[in-house]
């Protein structure tokens, strides 16, 4: 397939779903069945998005702030969660003890940490960071452990017969073999971190992220701004996911894990 045609194939389904959604929304709005204050028109949301985009208090700056928090939170979750996951894969005792704890923590919606976090750290940036890290760390740990456990035993046997063992076997064979699973785990973790962050920002308004916009718009019944902020949150999410998908595809296609065509 030629390059422009492939690019077209990438773009049109995305545009199509957007058009369908906006049309449906507009149709509902036009009937007037739903109160027009509660459900604003697509045009007014567009205007809200556009007029609040730039400037010191704009959506762009807020999105940047939120994205930075996501990045830092996810990095911290990876730094904490990866060794925990590796230990879980290496030891049955760790798996049964800390592993169970991780499963329990993952079952806990991360926002449940917020009341406690605000008591510990006040309504501060640190409370937000804490909630994000608590949201993403169990996912990173569990995915890391799974990715190591799923390394094909034949690969390890082959490496051992070649004379590789101990720490070097682990670093040169087990860890590289686990990379695709690990990336998939990070892809799950960022989504959890992002949700935790938005929830935390909604409450810790001093953080002035995208979540804060939502809170502010809600306080003054500015439904167009609410929806505009939700659109912005989704757009950032699609962007971050795109980065992970790109890395994932590169790694997997190098190993022949993506069916061609």
């Amino acid at each position, binding site marked *: 397939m030629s390059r422009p045609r492939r690019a077209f194939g990438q773009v049109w389904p995305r545009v199509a779903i957007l058009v369908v959604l906006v049309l449906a929304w507009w149709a509902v709005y036009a009937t007037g069945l739903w109160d027009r204050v509660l459900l604003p028109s697509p045009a007014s949301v567009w205007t809200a998005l556009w007029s609040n985009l730039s400037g010191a208090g704009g959506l762009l700056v807020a999105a940047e702030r939120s994205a930075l928090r996501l990045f830092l939170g996810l990095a911290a979750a990876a730094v904490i969660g990866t060794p925990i996951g590796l230990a879980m894969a290496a030891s049955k005792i760790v798996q049964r003890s800390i592993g169970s704890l991780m499963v329990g923590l993952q079952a806990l919606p991360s926002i449940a940490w917020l009341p406690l976090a605000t008591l510990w750290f006040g309504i501060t940036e640190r409370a937000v960071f804490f909630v994000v890290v608590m949201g993403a760390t169990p996912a990173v740990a569990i995915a890391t452990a799974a990715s190591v456990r799923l390394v094909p035993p*034949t*690969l390890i*046997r*082959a*490496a*051992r*017969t*070649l*004379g*590789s*063992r101990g720490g070097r076997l682990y670093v*040169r*064979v087990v860890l*590289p*073999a686990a*990379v695709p699973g690990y990336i998939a785990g990070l892809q799950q973790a960022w989504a959890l971190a992002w949700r935790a962050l938005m929830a935390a920002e909604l409450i810790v308004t001093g953080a002035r992220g995208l979540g804060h916009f939502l809170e502010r718009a809600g306080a003054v019944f500015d439904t167009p701004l609410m929806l505009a902020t939700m659109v912005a949150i989704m757009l950032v999410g699609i962007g971050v996911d795109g980065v992970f998908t790109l890395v994932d595809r590169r790694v997997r296609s*190098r*190993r*022949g*894990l993506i069916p061609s065509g």
Partner: protein
Amino acid sequence: MSSVPSLRVVGRPEPTSPKLSLRSVSKTYRQSSGELVRALDDVTLDVAPGEFVCLVGPSGCGKSTLLDLIAGLERPDAGQVLMNGRPIAGPGPDRAVLFQEPTLFPWMSVIRNLEFALGLTGVPKADRRELAMHWLSKVHLSAFASAQPHEISPGMRQRAVLARALACQPEVLLADEPFGALDAQSREVLQRELQTVWLETRNTFVFVTHNVREAVFLADRVVLMSARPGTLVAEHRISSPRPRSFEDVLLAKVVVDVHDHLLKEVQKVVATEEGVRPGLA
């Protein structure tokens, strides 16, 4: 059977001493159901230096287990597994293994796979590339040195694994149905190629296969194993001169003989199983 356990002063092997020897080796596995499965029962086998031995036997008779013991991936419950008269303590690059599935590391190119293995045997970095290329050319893969494993065919992958094994210059080569997953044509090409490189290197070889034709084509000696628990029941020396060809009529006759023998053994085992557990065989 050929060998009788004999006393030997360890550490001072006689000139004619076997490269590998299994002394009354038994191995039992505990299945996850808790059931004990006796995979090998009192197996004694000597392999001379430079000898090519093929192990054939019905499925589940313990061929892979035997190979794992020699590779050092498993330990015997009873008996001894010796190389050069010394017990095998664990896996090592002096015994290369070809598994049924090609075991190239998928994140490394073909040549990096060889270089990685060479590094493990202590070859200095500067010499690895040249050595790797040398062994790749032996299996006609020079043109695919920088390909990723998934970009070459399964037969080529298995050839790359063979090159990787040979590059480490092991004392012993072990193969567990390495061509079992290939189509008939690739299989024959690889059998010929293996014969050619082996005639150059003359490693001691233990080769497991289901395929009697393959065994007779490759081996100095074909050893038959009985069904579980695996014991060695018979052996055939194949004295046809090398290089051999599949068109050789005499060789075809040997194939038929070995095959008949194997079939008889299998039937014997089925008969005893039927006797023990009526209706279950």
